[in-house]
């Protein structure tokens, strides 16, 4: 054993002492009765009155975990989301006692997937990560799906994983099951960076480095393994610990020559189109995109992984995707993960086929930080896009220089052309909106409630408030909120899961609501039924921590996408289509989501299937939310 007995302090000797005490107890009771077996161990006289060995140190006022909390405070982590686990018990104790349970505050989660999902939603509102503690092997495996979603969605999540590295320090039994040689290996394919610091100075450097890496576009989760011994052992008096200065890297900007070429193509184009997916990381990104679109009078298709562009802006042509793509002579793709899919239709029939749907000769310009960081195992990279100009850079950071370059090239002649184009686009956008209103009336009074009616009823109740939609709206809601509501602030929409992993919706909504709480915003979550059933305990977390959130169930009582896939297969195989509900529906019995919510201290109403009952129920729920608590209205809906 490398370490001497005299250096073996703290946790390990506490364990030895506890074990010895137990042995002493057994010896003291010659014939243990049933009562004595079921009662708590009684300290032996020797254990009570004897002195510990002189070399043993049983307590410390300054464990390593206190310093770790100092580091987290320096990073500005507001919250730690976690399900408690012994491998980070030192950290947890330091959060709640040494750190005063404030910045970071410990948020009790019922599942690690919920903890990471909350971090995911929080980051998309707040623009920075919160901390997640996870418990060694089991905790990280629970967290894995949510980490993958955040990775695909380019969202920073700051994960600290407890683990006991030194095998000789592990408690016999469970701690061996909860220890791992290379913990990060479980998720290394979908975290941006990980490290295993072996000293407190090392921890400080790696902790600051991890934060910096997570926050550099393309943003992604990072993982720091925190050794239990390092947490629990005392800080040496002469440790000389310091926290390194955090300086975030400036986001990578596009090469000036490439930006100039992009500007030339866009200004010369007759029908330029801008497609944005994760372009607006911050409100500034949205403002830049508005300026670029207005300068060019170019239509924007917002794929809405973030809110990139106001929904009612005359240049928002997201609902006219095919038309504008087919007419485009230049397409600028901003932070797209699937540029190939923008210009190609794919047909999922027995013989799969694809077809280029853009005009011949169209010039494609990509601008994405995704070109700067890519991994191979998980295939979220999509098909290879054959672009004409690939600018490997963060779009939001590059847009100002592109706007300037565009402005320099615009002469009076082009300005007149742009104005004419803008007028036509505004007219087409208005027509599209009118068509959307007309489309909404079909099934208006249907029971179960149509997703269009649900969206319109909800909008009427929130539109005069400072609201934030903290859920996705596609495909389940048929995009109705984005089509009917007026979104014009970046925080009003956070997009979807990224990796399409179910179970993201509820925790991300609670996490986003946690971020919105201090801003006084009304957080609204349109919650799919199957998603909530993955880890409904996050409702309890919302109630326990008084996180105001309006949950409106989109309860179509099915894993609807899968129903359609099964129908497709049954059809393809000529076997009839009456059994597609087997294994794909969530009925018999129907889940009572109102009671589920109530059981966890959340205001719950429903199920509501008559549209006339919807508005009063939403109003009552909003009253609860405005008092600072979560509420849920169970709405039985049409499939989509």
């Amino acid at each position, binding site marked *: 054993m490398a370490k001497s007995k005299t250096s073996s302090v703290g946790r390990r000797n506490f364990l030895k002492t506890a074990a010895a005490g137990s042995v002493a107890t057994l010896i003291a009771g010659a014939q243990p009765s049933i009562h004595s077996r079921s009662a708590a161990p009684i300290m032996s006289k020797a254990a009570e009155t004897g002195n510990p060995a002189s070399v043993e140190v049983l307590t410390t006022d300054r464990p390593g975990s206190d310093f770790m909390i100092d580091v987290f405070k320096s990073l500005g982590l507001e919250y730690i989301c976690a399900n408690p686990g012994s491998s980070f018990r030192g950290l947890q104790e330091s959060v709640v006692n040494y750190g005063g349970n404030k910045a970071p505050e410990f948020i009790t989660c019922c599942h690690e997937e919920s903890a990471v999902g909350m971090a995911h939603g929080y980051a998309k509102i707040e623009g920075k990560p919160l901390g997640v503690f996870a418990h060694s092997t089991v905790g990280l495996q629970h967290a894995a799906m949510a980490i993958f979603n955040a990775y695909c969605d380019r969202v920073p999540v700051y994960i600290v994983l407890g683990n006991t590295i030194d095998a000789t320090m592990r408690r016999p039994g469970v701690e061996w099951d909860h220890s791992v040689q290379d913990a990060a290996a479980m998720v290394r394919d979908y975290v941006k960076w990980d490290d295993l610091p072996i000293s407190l100075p090392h921890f400080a450097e790696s902790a600051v480095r991890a934060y910096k890496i997570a926050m550099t576009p393309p943003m992604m989760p990072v993982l720091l393994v925190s050794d239990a011994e390092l947490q629990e052992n005392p800080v040496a008096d002469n440790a000389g610990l310091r926290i390194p200065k955090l300086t975030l890297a400036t986001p990578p900007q596009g090469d000036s020559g490439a930006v100039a070429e992009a500007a030339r193509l866009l200004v010369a184009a007759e029908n330029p189109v801008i497609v944005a997916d994760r372009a607006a990381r911050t409100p500034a990104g949205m403002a830049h995109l508005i300026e670029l679109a207005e300068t060019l009078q170019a239509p924007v298709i917002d794929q809405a992984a973030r809110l990139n562009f106001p929904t009612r802006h005359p240049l928002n042509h997201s609902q006219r995707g095919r038309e504008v793509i087919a007419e485009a002579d230049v397409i600028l793709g901003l932070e797209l993960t699937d540029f190939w899919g923008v210009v190609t239709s794919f047909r999922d029939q027995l013989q799969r086929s694809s077809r280029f749907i853009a005009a011949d000769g169209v010039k494609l310009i990509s601008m994405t930080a995704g070109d700067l960081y890519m991994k191979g195992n998980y295939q979220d990279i999509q098909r290879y896009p054959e672009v004409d100009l690939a600018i490997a850079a963060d779009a939001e950071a590059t847009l100002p220089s592109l706007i300037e370059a565009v402005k320099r090239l615009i002469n009076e002649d082009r300005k007149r052309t742009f104005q004419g184009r803008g007028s036509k686009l505004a007219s087409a956008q208005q027509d599209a909106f009118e068509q959307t209103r007309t489309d909404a009336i*079909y099934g208006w009074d249907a029971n179960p409630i149509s997703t269009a009616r649900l969206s319109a009823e909800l909008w009427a109740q929130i539109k005069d408030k400072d609201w934030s939609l903290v859920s996705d709206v596609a495909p389940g809601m048929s995009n109705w909120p984005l089509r009917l509501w007026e979104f014009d602030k970046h925080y009003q929409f956070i997009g979807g899961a990224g990796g399409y992993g179910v179970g993201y919706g509820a925790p991300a909504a609670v996490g986003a609501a946690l971020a919105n709480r201090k801003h006084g915003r009304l957080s609204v979550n349109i919650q799919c039924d199957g998603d909530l059933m993955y880890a409904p305990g996050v409702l309890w977390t919302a109630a326990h921590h008084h996180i105001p959130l309006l949950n409106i169930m989109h309860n179509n009582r099915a894993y609807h996408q899968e129903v359609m896939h099964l129908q497709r297969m049954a059809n393809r195989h000529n076997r009839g289509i009456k059994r597609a509900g087997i294994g794909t529906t969530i009925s018999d019995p129907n889940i009572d989501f109102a009671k589920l919510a109530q059981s966890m201290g959340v205001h719950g109403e429903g199920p509501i299937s008559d549209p006339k009952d919807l508005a009063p129920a939403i109003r009552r729920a909003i009253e609860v939310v405005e008092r600072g608590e979560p509420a849920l209205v169970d709405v039985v809906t049409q499939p989509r």
Partner: protein
Amino acid sequence: MDRAVSRRCGIRRFIAPLMIAGFLIVVCPGAEAQASTGNAKNGKQIYASFGCYECHGREGQGSVLSGPRIGPHPIQFSAFVKYIRQPKGQMPPYTDKVVSEVELADIYAFLQSLPPPPDPKKIPLLNPDSGAKKSK
């Protein structure tokens, strides 16, 4: 709920309407519908049991992300049948082994029997003013 957004195809929000465009020949409110001899009541049952509503909604209202509106006022019956047998878009083909001509006639009759929708101008929630927000 939807377990995944078209996991295989990677269909994104805006591209989905493009895909659906292949279906749009099914929906043509202005087209003169052929008189159907089908049984609307039976058609309603088949429409549900065959799962037509999964993509097109229980009232045939459709969705931009799954299937287009198909009622009321469906296209002519012959075109309706032709598309179901040999769709050009993402809709799976439904052969006569799966759904018979008689059953299609019943479904068609059900779609024809759907009541006309309300006038959007008379629905306050869809009034353009309902989209205006107060300044904060």
